[in-house]
């Protein structure tokens, strides 16, 4: 009975080790110190999202070549109206090459209730990889008929 229990425990341990190994190859943890932006591109608030008052966070994973240029960008999460512009923007960034040949970019879109005059949005890079895009709300514009 004790031997049987020992075998079961060994099998479970082997399974755990095996699972850890698979996870490590697919879902690596990327530390902030691995992400070093060499060049970034500012972006505007996507116009349709601004008009439709869409806010939120988009997370993009980029694959890098040996020189740190973005080879491929993929959205991990975010609103449909925001993702295409983020993907297009991420492809213009450049990073210091790292061992994992990848980086994560976080785009944060907000529309605070303020007047901005003729400016439509502001872009700032915060921390190592957080792009903050603050938009100016689009005020409603009704179209009216007339009587004859």
């Amino acid at each position: 009975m004790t031997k049987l229990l020992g075998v079961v425990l060994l099998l479970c341990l082997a399974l755990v080790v095996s699972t850890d190994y698979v996870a490590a190859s697919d879902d690596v943890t990327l530390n902030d110190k691995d992400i070093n932006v060499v060049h970034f591109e500012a972006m505007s608030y996507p116009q349709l999202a601004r008009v439709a008052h869409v806010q939120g966070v988009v997370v993009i994973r980029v694959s890098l070549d040996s020189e740190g240029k973005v080879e491929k960008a993929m959205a991990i999460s975010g609103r449909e109206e925001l993702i295409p512009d983020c993907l297009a923007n991420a492809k213009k960034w450049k990073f210091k090459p790292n061992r994992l040949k990848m980086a994560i970019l976080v785009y944060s879109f907000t529309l605070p209730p303020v007047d901005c005059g003729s400016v439509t949005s502001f872009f700032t890079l915060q921390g190592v990889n957080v792009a903050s895009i603050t938009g100016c709300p689009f005020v409603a514009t009704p179209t009216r008929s007339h009587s004859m």
Partner: protein
Amino acid sequence: MAIRGDGAVVISAPGNTSGLPELMIVDGQNGQLLGQQPSIPASSYQLSNGSWVNGYSPIGPPIVDSNGSIYVEYEVDQIAYPPQVTSATLYLMQIADDQYNTVTTTQLSSTSSNEHLFPGRIVPDGQGGVLATWVIAPSSGPIPTNPYQAAYVVSGSLTASYALPFTPTNFVLGPDGLPIKPTLILGDNGTVFATDGTSSGDSTNGEGPKIVAFALASGTLDWFYQAQSIQTTLGLVAAATNTGLAAKSTSNGVDTVLSFDSSGNVTPSSWTGTDVSNFGGNYWLGYSATGGANYNATPVELSSSPFYGSDGNGGNAAVQDISVQSFSQTGSNQTTITNVLQEIKTALPSYGACNSWLNNGSQQNNLSGVSYIGQMLQSNTYGHGTIYVGTNIRYDIWAFSGATNPDHTMISGLPTNGGISMVVNDVAGFFNATANGGAYYLGPRNYPGDSLRAQAMVLIHEVAHQLPVPGFQADNNNNKAEKANNKMVDINCRQLIEALQ
């Protein structure tokens, strides 16, 4: 005369000798007085026999603010015999839109120096305050250095009082025999523009009339422009965006448009005309040697101030919150919107003028008109419902773009997490030939309600707002801007609109 939002007409009649009150608020439909109204106090006049009688008090032009409040200035005098102004007191009366229950009177100025304080023009600030102006006119002798005065009144309290930055050497009298008062308009960021446009001399350098820009709250001068000749007159056309101004100077009957930036730097137009006026945007009307003429030049993008034009026009003057009830993104109405958008998207590449006009607007966003409409369709960012303004269903609003009100509150009735760029009104002309008992039409071609042409015009208009196309103006509650916008759609996209099947 001024007109309140409910159609009531406010009339001030200085020295009314017909037996009617000096101030009247009448029904716009039948001319009948609307209830028991506040009266203007009488002035006192001494007769040659030493007795005193009541007489009229000078009264100025009324205005109606966005909340329905009526403002008017009047001067109560005591005139001794032989004629001498022994006292003059100037008041501002505010009549709230509450059946005359709230009437507020504020004393603006007083004098006992044998001079009048003639009521002048009033400009609303759009937030419950007004700039009230007047003219100090001595009964005899030279005029003061600064005869034009102003007071900023907020909630019935006089918060600032200052001299308007004009120094005329004499008055030019109007048909009523009284000094012509400066005209004023309100621009962006609390900047007031004013002109003594027909002044025949200024003590600054003895030359022509001025246009001045100053701060509403303090009177601090920002800049001034002076005509080079006393034969030249100046007029204000409209306050423009970014604290700009469009004005005109007239010499020998020929108008030149003057465009001022926020610092007062002026750019005269390269074209001239007679009696020119801005229709909206870059469309101007006037007269040439051969008759009526229109000009396509010198665009004016109107300020959103509540009093951008001297005729009392105002952008956000009466803006109230929009709301939507019964919002939906399904059903036959949704299918209709989708189909019209799809037809426009398909047709655009074949209609170069419309296509490139929309593409001009989207350059800054790296979008084409076709791709933008494609995004709208793909992300389904539109819907329909019943559109309200305040508590009233608005049958005249066919659609709107955006999700926030001018005060930045979210439009209620839409999904709280956003995602809607355009709403079409279920009860207005987009889906109905008649609405609320009347037939409705849209744009300069009078496209009838519930027609494909009207539907296409509405949607192109809204897409032009959203992109936005340069020169396409914010027209929330602004008839002039809306007419100009519809004209732009007509000029660029009429062929496409009328080709749709």
